[in-house]
């Protein structure tokens, strides 16, 4: 049907054909002729449009096309800025999952660290409290051990012994009575100015012209300076058959005076134990 309905294209097609003696020639050239249009091609029209004289209508087209170019460029640049905007849904889910997991991890870490911090803080607090307690205890023990001076209410016991008849036994029993009455710090001074802090290891030995206390020679009159509850201490000295009576029996005189404020400033020199060492702590004991 194209052969009979397209006579316009027959002319150039037949002219270009080099061989046209028989009826077979047009049938062979028919397909080629179909792509040789007589009307101007699209490219021709495009080229003509590009070369056309500018007119007002083109300005509007140019403005719109320019707007498109501008918008497209801006949009492309904006997308470049934001990776997440371009990411696909699956990628976004992955990113979100990762971030959530990371957030959970960090939350756990925060909780853990806060816990550690609390423990450390309370540990430091209890450590400080323990240190304070220990320091206080050490202070108290130091008073009892006689390694520091002490001050407080107490009594003085003055034993005047002109005949030198008050011996170590009496002095020792006096110290025992004072201890059992709650004496916390005891100082013994002699008439010759020597002073001794009476502690747990203190011993009394009869000596020529007096007594030896911890190896220090003391001469009468002796004077105890005792820190403790004054009335209890005084009663412990003065009860019948007690220290005062014993001193009187030995031929001396003992006077007890109560004071609101006494100072024991002689300290005991501690020598490290040579044989004994602290036994290990036994929790079950």
């Amino acid at each position: 049907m194209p052969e009979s309905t397209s006579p316009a294209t027959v002319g150039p097609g037949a002219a270009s054909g080099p061989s046209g003696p028989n009826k077979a020639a047009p049938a062979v050239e028919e397909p080629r002729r179909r792509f040789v249009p007589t009307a101007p091609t699209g490219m021709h029209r495009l080229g003509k449009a590009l070369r056309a004289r500018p007119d007002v209508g083109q300005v509007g087209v140019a403005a719109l096309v320019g707007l498109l170019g501008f918008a497209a460029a801006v949009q492309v640049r904006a997308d470049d800025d934001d990776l997440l905007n371009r990411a696909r849904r699956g990628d976004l889910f992955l990113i979100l999952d990762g971030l959530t997991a990371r957030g959970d991890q960090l939350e756990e870490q925060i909780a853990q660290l806060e816990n550690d911090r609390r423990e450390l803080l309370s540990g430091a607090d209890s450590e400080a409290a323990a240190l304070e307690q220990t320091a206080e205890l050490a202070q108290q023990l130091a008073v009892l051990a006689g390694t520091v001076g002490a001050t407080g209410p107490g009594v003085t016991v003055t034993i005047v012994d002109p005949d030198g008849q008050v011996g170590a036994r009496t002095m020792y029993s006096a110290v025992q009575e004072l201890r059992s009455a709650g004496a916390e710090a005891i100082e013994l001074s002699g008439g010759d100015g020597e002073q001794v802090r009476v502690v747990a290891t203190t011993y009394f030995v009869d000596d020529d012209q007096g007594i030896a206390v911890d190896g220090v020679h003391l001469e009468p009159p002796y004077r105890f300076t005792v820190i403790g509850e004054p009335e209890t201490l005084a009663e412990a000295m003065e009860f019948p058959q007690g220290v005062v009576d014993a001193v009187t029996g030995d031929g001396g005189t003992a006077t007890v005076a109560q004071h609101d404020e006494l100072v024991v400033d002689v300290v005991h020199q501690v020598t490290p134990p040579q044989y004994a060492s602290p036994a290990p702590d036994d929790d079950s004991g």
Partner: protein
Amino acid sequence: MIPAIGLLLGILAGLLFDVDVPLALQPYLPIAVVAALDAVFGGLRAVMDGVFNDKVFVVSFVANVIIAAFIVFLGDQLGVGSQLSTAVVVVFGIRIFTNVATIRRHVFRA
């Protein structure tokens, strides 16, 4: 000639000036660009078909952009904005392919 220069100038301006897309326009600009692209390819095809008309091009360009943006806006209001955006992009994509196919036939005659 003038439209080609206009396109070049527009792209250069968009690349050179650092313009931030306003937040209110952000969902609509890509759709508007696709719609305008369809209008431009349609215009090119019309030029090659020999039926190009300034007025038709301007009207179709503006109408494409406005309707595409309106559809997306409507979708946003209805809660199906992303789906409608996809629909608009698909439709314009098909049209662009059709137009480009015609242009291709003009250029390569195949």
